[in-house]
């Protein structure tokens, strides 16, 4: 019957200003910063190449993460191989940075089978389209791992729009009650397709939702790659140590349209986009590295080259039409096809003969 409120409340609130590293005079880390930069360059190229391939009809649709590469790269690099990543449809880049074959990562967006890879191989859940529905999966998986005694943390990605869904709420609540080793990274890129954040939420910040579940909320500059990496690593370490979940809001911006099929000019002005271009995550990190003399010409050239190789691999891999076997329509509905499915498969085979 003690009705006084838990004193931890204050500690769970986000800092008043988003966490930043770049431009704060912080000492650069020669281990991680150049690597982050190299991946950002690759990531940007991946985005531009994939977008270009939609124009050539080699990809059906591509939700670009241009402008959000710092979040994508940091998310992938913060994880251990034994951890699990739960991406949304916009997070192909994070899966590629984690090591997924760049062509396989695009299967879904190419019109091929929904998940072009074995999720268990690199511990990457299927790219998830129904918003926020992947969040309870991440919680359940993390909880299961903990029950098994495995040292596994799950990192789940979601957009600002996705935080409005009931599944977001239920997932965070389960995570907190179960103290599951899971970290939620909201990439707040300002829009859900055309809908700006102001129509999505009236909260001081999305990170302020955390205290309502009893977990810490962190706010970070999502275009500051070392900052995102740092905050993620802290949260993952906390989860690993049994400290439970964290909600992180990364403030970033989607420089491209929602997908190649979207016309962003309908809902936002050039000035807004230009202002965010000035805070390009590549430039922010590149400039700082250069200022510290940590970005040799050789390194930059190698990064560019690698990026071009990635783009070339994409072009090559997506050059032909994938060949899908219609018989596969029936192969994986169940562990073993039912009599009904067997007869439907047979009927299709007849038609195709």
């Amino acid at each position: 019957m003690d009705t006084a409120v838990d004193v931890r409340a204050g500690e769970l609130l986000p800092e008043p200003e988003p966490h930043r590293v770049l431009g704060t005079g912080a000492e650069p880390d020669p281990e991680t910063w150049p690597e982050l930069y190299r991946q950002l360059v690759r990531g940007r190229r991946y985005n531009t190449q994939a977008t270009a391939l939609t124009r050539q009809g080699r990809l059906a649709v591509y939700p670009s993460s241009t402008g959000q590469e710092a979040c994508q790269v940091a998310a992938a690099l913060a994880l251990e191989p034994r951890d699990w990543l739960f991406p949304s449809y916009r997070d192909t880049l994070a899966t590629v940075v984690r090591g997924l074959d760049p062509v396989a990562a695009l299967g879904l967006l190419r019109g091929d089978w929904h998940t072009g890879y074995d999720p268990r191989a690199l511990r990457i859940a299927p790219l998830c389209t129904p918003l926020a529905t992947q969040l309870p999966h991440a919680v359940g998986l993390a909880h299961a791992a903990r029950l098994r005694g495995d040292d596994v943390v799950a990192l789940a990605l979601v957009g600002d729009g996705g935080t409005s869904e009931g599944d977001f709420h239920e997932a965070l609540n389960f995570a907190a009650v179960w103290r599951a080793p899971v970290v939620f990274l909201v990439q707040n890129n300002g829009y859900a397709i055309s809908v700006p954040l102001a129509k999505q939420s009236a909260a001081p910040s999305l990170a302020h939702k955390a205290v309502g579940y009893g977990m810490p909320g962190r706010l970070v500059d999502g275009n500051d790659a070392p900052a995102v990496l740092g905050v993620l690593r802290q949260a993952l370490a906390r989860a690993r140590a049994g400290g439970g979940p964290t909600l992180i809001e990364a403030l970033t911006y989607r420089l491209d349209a929602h997908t190649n099929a979207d016309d962003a000019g309908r809902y936002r002005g050039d000035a807004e986009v230009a202002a965010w271009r000035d805070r390009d995550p590549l430039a922010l990190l590149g400039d700082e590295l250069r200022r510290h003399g940590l970005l040799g010409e050789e390194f930059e050239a190698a990064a560019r080259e690698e990026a071009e190789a990635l783009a070339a691999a994409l072009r090559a891999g997506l050059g032909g039409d994938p060949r899908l076997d219609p018989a596969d329509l029936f192969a994986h509905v169940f562990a073993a096809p039912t009599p009904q499915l067997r007869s439907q498969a047979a009927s299709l085979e007849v038609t195709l003969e």
Partner: protein
Amino acid sequence: MTTTMAGALNRALRDALAEDPAVHLLGEDIGTLGGVFRVTDGLAAEFGDERCTDTPLAEAGILGTATGMAMYGLRPVVEMQFDAFAYPAFEQLVSHVARMRNRTRGALPLPLTVRIPYGGGIGGVEHHSDSSEAYYMATPGLHVMTPSTVADAYGLLRQAIASDDPVVFLEPKRLYWAKGELEPDVPPGGRAVLRRPGASATLIAYGPSVPVCLAAAEAARERGWDLGVVDLRTLVPFDDETVCAEVRRTGRAVVVHEAAGFAGPGAEIAARVTERCFHYLAAPVGRVTGFDIPYPPPLLERHHLPDAERVLAAVARLQWED
């Protein structure tokens, strides 16, 4: 006036907004953007944000708040962005929207329209091509409409919005850009229409499968079959009269839809037609449907979707020998 189905729907919404101040549109991206299919294009500009509202991204919230608005006497028209994204709102639909009038013995009618783009054939990725009509048909308390023509797109949507009951209004995605004549007067909901008379057998379809059946009927002429095509237009209530009159005349019928066959809409249609026309039938009512599988990847969808070929194969199985 010639327009697309999307254009006709847009016009229906505009006219409804203009005529009745109680009409309010709610949905994701329906305001500034005009909807991902542009069905609400220009409406926020013309009628303001409060009549055509970009909501937060939460389908149960959209349908739940719309329910509250209808309880206050408004006539909300909700857009679900895609078929599969209506599922989060399922509890609100089944447990409240469908039951409010009944639960309150008529005191709280629920004049609410839920627009859902549905079906495949547009190369959509996972969760963007479901045919979910069986769920709505199996929920007592909902009307279910689905147009196959530009004229019905306008006419049925106007009727749906004017209805004092909740209507699930299913819009066949792949017909959004199909063109046709907009005529303000169409037969009332609840009535099927014979789109093409035919003496040999009757094809029964709705929404995206009507053009497939018309094409099949056209192709059938070469094979000596004169196929009629009934467009149901409304799945609930079902027009037994029109459908059975045709089937009794021809003695043979095939139901065609994209949804999975097992426990799909065709099951009910075949069962009720059989109950009513048993002694007229030369063969069991055929069903040409999507397979009993989750919607396939776009590159395989053509195998899954009924086409004229599969319709004709089913017609051929209607025991013509005897």
